[in-house]
Structure formats: structure tokens, C-alpha cells
């Protein structure tokens, strides 16, 4: 496989995508909402101390199920500090898995299905770019921009969280910490690759972009389960869990790529021309 050819497909697709504001706008807006709005909401909600008799809502369950190592970190903190610490470092973490998935879903759904709809696919398939190069190129054009957005969102989120934690924790900065670094640079890319790989495979097999996007929306369900699992305390995204999930997704990614290339059939793609 020639990486240069895959990058050629990436560059061509990115040129097209970057000139399409219908794709670019939601790609930028959703991460911005997560990275700016989540910490702002966190700053605005009143602390437990300020509202007598209030609770931490869904986080009560999570607090009860926390591993002892995390509970030790909370020793000596005020309720306001516990609330901020738990929400900013644990509650909101799974949202940063949604960012690459949502950002990539539009491009990945469009990868082959869009070319079929715009009737550009035949000339592309006629080139001497191999199946694996074509498949990888289509994955990269979804993966690279979505991961860039995820990292930028993480930097924005970290900056806002640190600005807030500086006053709440008397000069202490919470982010980045090792778990978040593992999450952003390990789990997010491997999970995104799984979702992108599956979406590109779906895109090659359906007739149109909308169909591909509707089917690929199902891929968000595991991440939503992770969010609710974390809220209910059933799952805890600590370093061990993040590491294990990263490893698991990495294996799935390798298997998925090989399967995607094996199942990639030019003839079948052409037969699904709209």
C-alpha cells in the first residue's frame, strides 16, 4: 500500500469538503458547544452549599461507586470543589468521544455515497489507486479533521476549566491530567477510527449520503451508553478503563480495516449508482 496515494485521496477530498459550508459549519459548531458551553454551564450552576438540601443530581450515584483511588482525591475538598472536580474531569469526559464521532460522521457518510450521488465515483474507481489506498484515503479525510477539532476542543475546554479551577481550587490547575491525555490521544482516535471505518464501509454499500448517515447514527449508541454508564456509576472512565478501551478499539480498528479492504468491491459500488 502506498501512503502517498492515500494522502492524495485525502487532499482531494479535503479540498472539496473544506469548500462546503454545509459540512464545515456543523463540524465546527458542535465541538465549540461542548468545549465552551460545558465549562460555562459548570460555572453557572449553583453549588450544593449555595442551595441547601440540593444534591449533585445524577452524580450522587457515581460518587457512591467511585474507586477508592478517586475517593481519596476528594478528601478535604469542599462540596463546590467536589462538584466542579467530578463534573469537569469525569462527567464531561465522554462528550469528548462524541466530538470526533459527530465531526467525522458527515464526511465519512459522504465518502463513497456522496461520490455516487454526484456521479464522480466511476472516474475515481478507474484510477490505478488500489482498494486499500482508496479506503485509507477516505478514512483519513474523516479522521484527520475530526481529531484536529477534538484536540482544539480539548485545548479550549482545558483552558476554560483551568481558568475556573484556578479560583475554585486556590491556584490549582486540573487539566491536562494523564487520564484526559489518554482519552484525547488514545481512546478518542481509536474509537473514532472504528466509527469512521464502519461508516465508510456503509457508505460504499448504500446508494446515497442520507442513507449512510442514518445507518451510521447507530454507531453513537455505544458512546451514549458510556455517558449513561458513567452517570449511573456503572462505568468509570479512569485510566485503566480508558487504557483497556483504547486497546480494544485499536484491535477492532485493525480488524475493521482489513475487513473493509476485503469487502471493498468496485463493481458493487458502481452497481449502486443513484
Amino acid at each position: 500500500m502506498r501512503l502517498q496515494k492515500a494522502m492524495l485521496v485525502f487532499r482531494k477530498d479535503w479540498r472539496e469538503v473544506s469548500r462546503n459550508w454545509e459540512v464545515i459549519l456543523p463540524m465546527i459548531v458542535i465541538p465549540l458547544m461542548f468545549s465552551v458551553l460545558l465549562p460555562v454551564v459548570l460555572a453557572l450552576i449553583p453549588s450544593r452549599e449555595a442551595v441547601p438540601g440540593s444534591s449533585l443530581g445524577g452524580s450522587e450515584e457515581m460518587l457512591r461507586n467511585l474507586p477508592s483511588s478517586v475517593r481519596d482525591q476528594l478528601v478535604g475538598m469542599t462540596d463546590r470543589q467536589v462538584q466542579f472536580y467530578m463534573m469537569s474531569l469525569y462527567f464531561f469526559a465522554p462528550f469528548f468521544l462524541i466530538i470526533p464521532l459527530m465531526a467525522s460522521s458527515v464526511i465519512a457518510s459522504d465518502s463513497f455515497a456522496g461520490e455516487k450521488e454526484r456521479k464522480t465515483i466511476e472516474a475515481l474507481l478507474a484510477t490505478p489507486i488500489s482498494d486499500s489506498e482508496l479506503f485509507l484515503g477516505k478514512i483519513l479525510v474523516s479522521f484527520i479533521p475530526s481529531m484536529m477539532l477534538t484536540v482544539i476542543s480539548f485545548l479550549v475546554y482545558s483552558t476554560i476549566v483551568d481558568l475556573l479551577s484556578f479560583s475554585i481550587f486556590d491556584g490549582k490547575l486540573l487539566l491536562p491530567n494523564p487520564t484526559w491525555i489518554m482519552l484525547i490521544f488514545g481512546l478518542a482516535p481509536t474509537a473514532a477510527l472504528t466509527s469512521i471505518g464502519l461508516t465508510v464501509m456503509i457508505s460504499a454499500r448504500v446508494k446515497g449520503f442520507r442513507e449512510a448517515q442514518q445507518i451510521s447514527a447507530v454507531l453513537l449508541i455505544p458512546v451514549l451508553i458510556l455517558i449513561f454508564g458513567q452517570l449511573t456509576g456503572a462505568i468509570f472512565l479512569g485510566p485503566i478503563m480508558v487504557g483497556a478501551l483504547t486497546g480494544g478499539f485499536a484491535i477492532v480498528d485493525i480488524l475493521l480495516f482489513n475487513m473493509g479492504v476485503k469487502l471493498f468491491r468496485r463493481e458493487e459500488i458502481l452497481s449502486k449508482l443513484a
Partner: protein
Amino acid sequence: MSVIETEGLTKRFGSFTAVDHLSFEVREGEVFGLLGPNGAGKTTTIRILACLVSPSEGSAKVLGHDITSDSLRIREVVGILTENPSLYERLTAYENMDFFAEAYGLEDQQERRGRIRELLEFFELWGRRDDKVATFSKGMKQKLAIARALVHRPPIVFLDEPTAGLDPESAKAIRDLIEGLSHHEKSTILLCTHRLEDAERLCDRLMIINRGKRVIVGTVEELQSRMGGKPVLQVTLREASQKVVEAVRGLKQVKQVDADSSATKLTIALDDIASATPEVVRSTVHAGGMVLSVNTLHPSLEEAYLRLVKERSS
């Protein structure tokens, strides 16, 4: 030397047979036409030869490479104008060309630029190179798509309906370009068309296919002669004269004489036009006929083609 050879090429889509045991060969440097009505199997044949679709049965070689086992190599040596222009409308003409040039292996940027400029100038699109393809007319898109098919100097070019959907002026411009192209690029061209004027003007040889089956192969003249009969002599007289008709009918070289309703135009079937014409003219004049013109009428490919396709379909 044959650069394309097919043997019993067949493609079935479920119970429908799009290409039915097609065997033919294309010689190096010729413009070979695949002529047939819509749905005859022309596009499927090109897709099989371009390794986009695999055959259900039979075999084919392109420049000696087997289509089933050496598809990547075939894609490198073939340029293709697909049924649709297949251009990226959000990219400029130059960006489209640059992508395909690199995809087809032109790694050196300077070389790519030179080649793209050469082609866009030939197709009179260099001035619009930085415009997005979305702003191009249908004819311009078609020109650009042909230029793209040639960007890597392929020894074999497949052109699928290059003038389809174009207005007569644009279609003529594309025909002129393809004609120039076969001399300029010295490529072997496999031209797929349902337009007789394209086939007649551009093809050295052509094969008529109908319902996926080969009907006939030959040069335009051979096909005209084999399908539409031999050329006939037409003599136009100033005045009608039954005496002239009888005189011509009496000649031993003459097989048949048809006169129009006014009997001023005689259509004469002869064994050998070249040797018999002087004798026909002499007899006409001798019988008192005043000859205004003498023409050799070749049967039209269109008539012959339509008759053939109709015969096969019924």
C-alpha cells in the same frame, strides 16, 4: 498488432445478459467504434475492459494484461471518459487534472504542470483553469473529462459516448477534437457511441452490437457495402424520357433501373460502377437524354444500421 482482445466476453446481471459472448480485437493506433442503440451493452463492455466490472464468462486482454488478474496494471495504461464526466465540481479545472495526473502516476509536479497545460491549451480550457468546474458548460465539462482521460499519456483510451447530451455545435467541436486527438496523441481509441455521425467520421473500424451481441465488424465502407448493398449510379436528366429508361435497361451491365415519378432521375444498379458508367452515359445521350448530372450514391450507414438493428430486435 492487437492491443485489445476479447474472447466470449459475457456479463450477466441476474437474469439479464448485458454482454453476450462478445469476441473482437482492436489494433494498435486505430479508432475502433462500438456502435449500438441504448442498452446494447457498450458501456458494460468498456467497464469490463477498464476493470471496473468483472466478466461473468470469457476473457479479455488489454495490452497483453489479463483483465481479471492484472487489473491495476490495466488501469495504469488506460484512460477513460466515463458515461458521466465524473468531475469534482467544487474543484477547479486545474485541481481536477492535477488530482488525476498524480493518481495515474505523474509524480513530478513540473511534469504534471507541463502536461496539464498542454492538454488544457489543446482543449481551449487553459484560460479557465482556475475556475470551479461547477461554472462550466456541459461541453466544457466534456472537454475537460476527455483531457483528464489523456493526462497520463495512455496508449489506450476508452471514450464512452463523448458527444451524448451535447448540442450540435458542441458535439461537432468534440468530434473535431477527437479526430485531432487520434493524430496528436497517437493513442488507440475505443469509442462507444450510438451516434452514427460519430462512428462514420471518427472510426477506422467499428463493431455494431445489439442486445449485448456482436452483429458485424468492419470499416465504415465495408459495413455500408455489406449491410446496405453496393453503391448505385444516379443520372439526372433535363426532361423525362421513357426511351432513355428502356435504352439503359437494355445494357448488359445494368441489373436494375428505377425512375422517380417524373422519370428525370434514374437510379441504376450496376455490377461495376467504374467500368459501366461511361457506357450508361453514352446510351443515355444516344437515346436523346440530356444529362444534367451523374453521381455515385453510397448507401447510408444510418439506413443500413437502422435496418440491421430493427431486424435483430424483431
